């Protein structure tokens, strides 16, 4: 499986287009992560806890995208686009949406 943000893969032409697929991951940091991030907001600097949460959300979205592609018989997802949004009251939940085109290379 090849997952890429590019529209073409050098040396591997697309044999079949299998459709646009997307996957989303919504993740909430827990109370303690919120508290520590809130303190970081007061004092400044990087928030490692939220960075880890964001990384996890991105991994989950890409994983789901890859599984959907595989189920369609694809061995590649081209033009992958990742969108990051905050949702929920006060923006405490993070949403990552991964979109791409499933293909057979």
């Amino acid at each position, binding site marked *: 499986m090849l*997952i890429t943000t590019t529209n073409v893969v050098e040396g591997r032409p697309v044999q079949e287009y299998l459709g646009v697929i997307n996957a989303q991951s919504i993740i909430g940091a827990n109370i303690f992560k919120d508290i520590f991030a809130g303190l970081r907001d007061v004092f400044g600097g990087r928030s490692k806890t939220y960075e880890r949460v964001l990384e996890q959300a991105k991994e989950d979205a*890409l994983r789901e995208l890859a599984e959907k592609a595989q189920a369609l018989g694809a*061995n590649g997802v081209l033009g992958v686009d990742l969108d990051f949004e905050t949702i929920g009251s006060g923006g405490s939940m993070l949403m990552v949406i991964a979109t791409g085109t499933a293909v057979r290379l």
Partner: protein
Amino acid sequence: MRNYFGTYTASRQSEPITASVLLFDRSLSIGYQDESGANHTARWEMNQLSASVVFSDGESLIRNIGTGEELRIAGKEAATLVKEMQEEMAKPWYRKKSAGYKGRLALFFGGLMLVLALLYFLFVPILSEKIAETVEPETERQLGDAVWEAMQPGITEDTGASRLVNEFFGALNVETEYRIRITVVNENVVNAFALPGGRIVVYTALLDKMQSYPELAALLSHEFTHVNNRHATKSIFRRLGSKVFISLLFGKMGSVTSVLVNHADDLKSLTYSRSLEKEADLDGLAILTNRKIDPQGFTDLFRHLKTAAPESTLPEFLASHPDIDKRIGYIKEMSKQAPVESHAELKAIFEQLKKQ
């Protein structure tokens, strides 16, 4: 997640076919097309696999022990990763389905709730009060004056009565670092209150109801205790402390949660308010009994407040003051056999006040 291309062999008799491979934490997923072109995906759990590196080809060979299926992937990385994940899963903390897990989780949350409860009900209020005690009387006076200034439009002072009530309080000879200033306000309200820093406000309607000087002494000593014991300042800091703690815990809440949490906090602060009122009653009573002033003044004062207020159907936990009958009860209990003397000076000032 790691993704590879590989060749998948269903059995010894089958031809190897090109497949896409997704390697997750505890499983791997194989996607392939059969001879008829139909799509298939196979999921292998990590604990079913045997992974090795074929040295002659430099490729990873992964076998499903249960079914005999095989997967070959170029390079050593896939086999290495599978082995690492299997080692990780063998570690004791990975076995989350063990019998005691839910129990341990429940214990952890119970402990956490206990800690948070201790912080909210004990540590935060005590810390807030300690901080309140560091506030200088001068700062309290400025705060009280600011509140008083804000109330000004609509306030008409009875200056003659104010002078006499201040004289009365002076005659009580109460030692304090605060400069007590009593203001009598013309209004048909049977009430009195104290502001931080020493200002006490008494409404004329309450003075009109009083029949004897012990009642005035009881009122002033009650309000004085609020000032001297810094009740208003402590209340402010406790409310502030609670709100900061709640906002740290809950962050920016939705409107429903916000209403629920704030009202719950309000109920807690009412409990504190009632305890402060009781403290003002009892410390005020001590001022009277130390000077051998008749403690009956307190019970008479409460009766005036009771007749002035409409009968409330609200339960006590929603009230800022203890129930009046309860107040009369504990005052009577604490003032049993208290010696009483006559105070000519206080009586004279009181009678002058009543003539006004």
